């Protein structure tokens, strides 16, 4: 099958800025990912449940509504979560180090500052991470 070569992963993108969501989706799809997008934490959690086959999460800190990315991570990496092993890439402009540290402590895999990274860099990082053999992933 054609799909066998680069494996198709499904990314859940949780980001509230419409233009950013669009460009992230376009880039990821160009790079061979399936993309699901959400603008709030609750929406994101619903998709986790409904779509079922999310391989990786692209997450912003400030989102629509009261809840922030931290709430999402706490849920996903919580003790009873069935999604504990799903990697999370936080891509945010809110680069306060307390935030950053909270995310990493909660088990986020990578924290990138939006304004400082190219889309192709982040996309390539995600693919590299997912393609790594399982035991290498922390």
């Amino acid at each position: 099958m054609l799909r066998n070569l680069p494996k198709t992963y499904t990314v859940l993108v949780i980001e509230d800025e419409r233009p950013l969501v669009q460009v992230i989706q376009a880039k990821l799809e160009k790079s061979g990912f399936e993309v699901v997008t959400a603008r709030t934490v609750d929406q994101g959690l619903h998709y986790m449940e409904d779509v079922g086959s999310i391989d990786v999460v692209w997450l912003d800190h400030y989102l629509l509504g009261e809840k922030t990315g931290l709430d999402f991570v706490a849920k996903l990496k919580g003790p009873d979560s069935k999604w504990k092993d799903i990697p999370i890439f936080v891509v945010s402009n809110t680069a306060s180090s307390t935030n950053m540290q909270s995310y990493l402590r909660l088990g986020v895999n990578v924290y990138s500052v939006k304004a400082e990274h190219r889309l192709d860099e982040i996309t390539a990082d995600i693919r590299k991470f997912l393609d790594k053999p399982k035991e290498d992933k922390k």
Partner: protein
Amino acid sequence: MKLNKKTKKQFVITAQKLAVIAREKESIRRKLAITAKEKEATRLKLVVTARELKRLHNTLEKKVLQRTKDLEQIRSKSEAILASIGDGLVVVDKEGKISYINKSFEEMLGWKSAEIIGKSMVQVVPREDVNGVGVSFKERILTQVLAGQKFVADLTNPFYYIRKDKSRFPASSIVAPVILNKKIVGAVEVFRDITKEKEIDKAKTEFVSLASHQLRTPLSTVNWYSEMLLTGDVGEVTPDQKKYLQEIYNGNRRMVDLVNTLLDVSRIELGTFVVESKPTDMVKLAQNVIAEQKQQIEEKNLNFSVSFENNIPSVKIDPKLFRMVIQNLLSNSIKYTPIGGAVSISLSLDNEKNLILKVTDNGYGIPKNQQSRIFTKLFRADNVIGKDTEGTGLGLYIAKSIVEQAGGKLWFESVENKGTIFYATLPLRRSKKQQIVL
């Protein structure tokens, strides 16, 4: 008659003698009369003098009274002025014991004059640094001022005074020695409550921080959309269009850098600059920075030299921050040196085991009259404003904050049109407290 003749002669003699005596008497009488007159004259003179003396005495007494009154007035006026000064005022003797406090002192600190006169200022009014750490007697500026220095602690270097009821307030102060006959006889301190100023300053910094965060979102949009266009992800663009897109992309990158710099400044000022120190190989760090700037060095055809002393041990610093310091100093040297000039960078150790980073150039230099302001936020020297439009005047401010936070020093020597040397020193072993705590 014989006897008669003799007797007659004797009579004559006697008569003559009597006449002489009479004359003498008369002369004595006259003399006495003169003396009496003189006496009377002297008496009269004495009377006049006594009167004069009495008059003078009266005048003098009046004058003394008047002067005393005047002095009293001047004294109470000065006292009233001192007492009414809106800033807190305290005068201490050379042992640091309080000899005078004004009303504002009483109001601000909650102590009454009678309670603390004669007591040690340093003990009565504890001082804390910004982190709430008490300042020891030895480090108190009052102690240092009594040794001859003058100190100013303002908004950029605030501290807290502890009131009688143990509450505290941020203050700024000026402490100066009182010098009498070339000897320090005490010190005088004027201080004020800067709660308001601090709040305003914090609000300003928070505003910058918030604005900068907000700015990053649209910048990310421009960034990523132009990136997609440039990489051809949304169809091919013509070479001409690509050139225009590239300029948009570059301009946006510069904006991102600027916002990042502003964020760094606001972090320094809010005290939220997180330092993650770890043993760092400074030589490697410097080599990385040099590699990054290679292109600019080559474009300007600079005579570039590097000298790193052997065996430079690793230093416990935050590599990300020190990378910024080296990057800043080196890029300044490159920017402000004309084409074909010379720039060099070196790392060495001094006798006291300090690491010294030295960045030298023979460029435009810093005009003498502006040297004192070079580390001031947003300041840029006149002679380079026209030459380079990219500077923000924030780089050296940030660099100095970083170096000093690590217990080091950053300074320079410069002659206009001859060149500049920037030095950054870092202690390899840090003592507990390097900064003067106010």
